[in-house]
């Protein structure tokens, strides 16, 4: 597999952390003009969706996927696990797409469309839960490392480095091979691989927030550390967390598909896109839809999450707006 997407996430922590920041060395430049009154976030969201059709479509796709995933039993035409007798041609080959089976059948005579719909459920569930878990771990570890500094920071960041250096996919595969493939394990190993990126991002943000004058001001007012973290630091992390979680869902879905493709993801006979591709692989000369349908669904899903993440980046500006004015 190629480098996972998360490897390329812009990393605020990449800035050399040892750089000296003597307040007196920062020149007393002229202040910029005050920004004009900004409309509320709700109105800005609608406005930017109206101006950006690509973002609108991607958000709609994400919403549709969520609906499909939630109402899979209601939306799917057939039971995804049922092998139809008429689902296989006389020679035992899968049936081409027709009016009965809109996307044809698989080598077991099961309806591909129904399996796709239930596959969406698996993809989203794994993507969202794994990312959520990773975010929580990442925020806690990154936040503590950034705010506490010193030895605590060194220990936590070396720990992060160790996990980061591990070949996560290989590690996941080994773990799952030993513990047995099930959805819970898939979620856990993906979360185990992904929290490090969030931890590094959160640590970088907290480090820079900690040096901001309004945090210093709160400290000199005598505000407690807990209150500073809750009121001055956490709210500024929200945009970054939203953006990187959205991108994280895309990454997690890809990893889940890869694991399932290798046969160690979501266990058979449950439907998963990656596993469908793996199964269709042998039939790609006679039944290309087995390969194309789940592949296209994967691309569209991941693309939609990536585009939504891009749009959120513009809207919330995790790196600058929250640090900016």
């Amino acid at each position, binding site marked *: 597999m190629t480098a996972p997407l998360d490897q390329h996430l812009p990393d605020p922590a990449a800035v050399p952390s040892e750089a*000296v920041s003597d307040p*007196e060395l920062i020149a007393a430049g002229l202040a910029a003009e005050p920004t004009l009154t900004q409309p509320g976030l709700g109105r800005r969201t609608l406005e930017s969706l109206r101006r950006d059709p690509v973002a609108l479509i991607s958000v709609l796709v994400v919403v549709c996927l969520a609906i499909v995933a939630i109402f899979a039993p209601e939306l799917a035409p057939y039971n995804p696990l049922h092998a139809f007798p008429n689902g296989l041609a006389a020679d035992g080959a899968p049936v081409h797409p027709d009016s009965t089976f809109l996307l044809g059948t698989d080598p077991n005579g099961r309806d591909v469309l129904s399996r796709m719909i239930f596959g969406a459920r698996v993809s989203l569930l794994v993507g969202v839960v794994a990312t959520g878990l990773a975010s929580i771990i990442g925020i806690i570890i990154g936040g503590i490392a950034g705010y506490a500094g010193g030895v605590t920071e060194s220990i936590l960041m070396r720990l992060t480095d160790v996990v980061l250096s591990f070949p996560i996919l290989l590690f996941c595969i080994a773990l799952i091979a030993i513990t047995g493939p099930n959805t819970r394990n898939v979620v856990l190993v993906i979360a185990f691989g992904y929290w490090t990126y969030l931890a590094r991002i959160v640590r970088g943000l907290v480090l820079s927030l900690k040096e901001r004058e309004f945090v210093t*001001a709160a400290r000199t007012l005598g505000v407690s550390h807990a209150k500073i973290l809750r009121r001055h630091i956490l709210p500024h992390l929200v945009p970054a967390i939203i953006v990187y979680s959205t991108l994280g869902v895309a990454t997690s879905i890809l990893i889940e598909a890869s694991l399932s493709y290798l046969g160690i993801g979501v266990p058979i006979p449950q439907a998963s896109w990656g596993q469908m591709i793996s199964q269709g692989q042998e039939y790609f000369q006679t039944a290309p839809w087995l390969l194309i349908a789940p592949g296209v669904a994967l691309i569209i899903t991941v693309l939609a999450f990536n585009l939504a993440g891009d749009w959120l980046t513009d809207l919330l500006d995790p790196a600058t707006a929250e640090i900016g004015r």
Partner: protein
Amino acid sequence: MTGEPIVDVTDLQVHFRVRRGLVGYQTVRAVDGVSFTIAAGQTLGLAGESGSGKSTVARSLVRINQPTGGSIRVGGTETARLRGQDLRAYRRRMQMVYQDPYDSLDPRMSVLEAIGEGLAVRGMARAQRRAATEDLLRRVNLPVSLTSRYPGQLSGGQRQRVSIARALAVSPEVIVCDEAVAALDVSIRAQVLNLLKDIQADAGVSYLFISHDLSTLRFMADQVAIMYVGRLVEYGTSSQVFGQPQHPYTKALVAAVPEITATGRTGRTRLTGEPPNPADPPPGCPFHPRCAVAIDICKTLRPTLRRKVGGQFAACHVAPDEAPAVSSQGATPGTPGAEPGPAIGTPSSSEVSA
């Protein structure tokens, strides 16, 4: 006007450790033996170039930086080594107004929340905070309608007033203003300076007013201290220091102030060179490489603050000392009751620097 000094800083040292090598450190003496006092209701102006340590002095007074040595007595209480609950209680007595009006207010907190945070620290119940916030806004000449605004909706001058109101929320005895007007436009700067003076007249707070702009200091300060590479080089009343500067560095600073006169730029004394790196200051008097009147001893022996002919203190081998006949009591800068003399000639500052 006089009385016990509210702030009495003696031989303040703030050193930073910079990593060198695998386990080694190098010590940077950002502040190296600074002593001064501020009388109640008065203003001490502190001037110096980048890297002189003036902001570090400010930050160690409000305990953002931990002093390495020396004492900071506020209202008679030693505060340099307070921790935990005591430190939080102390913070209320000493507040700070920051340079950058765009960074010193949390962009996600409304004016009410920002000022209310200070009131909450003082223990005020939530119900009373709105009225108290409005009072504070009135004191800094802002309309009370601003309470629900966010910093992004305020101009630089308005933000700086909100910062002042937030500082006032805890009723401090001393406010440290670190380049508090440097980022403001000239016409706004005058408004804020006037406001600070009004507040002082009303509430009797003392200021440590830090600025690189000497004309602003002359307007604001009762006493003035000039810093160069971590130490005071001149210290006296505003009229002594600006009227008859004794240290050659102060003289050059005063001469370099661009005045609004159409007299051109000729015939002024100019400093050559740049301020030294605080991590590696020159031996002897740190100013000697840039000094026009330096003599041999300046290269080896670091001068201590001594009373000079104008009545102020200066750390210079060349500037003539005060004639012994003059009573030192009469010429004490600004606060006759608080004689800073003995506190200044501390042993560490008279040692020959390595």
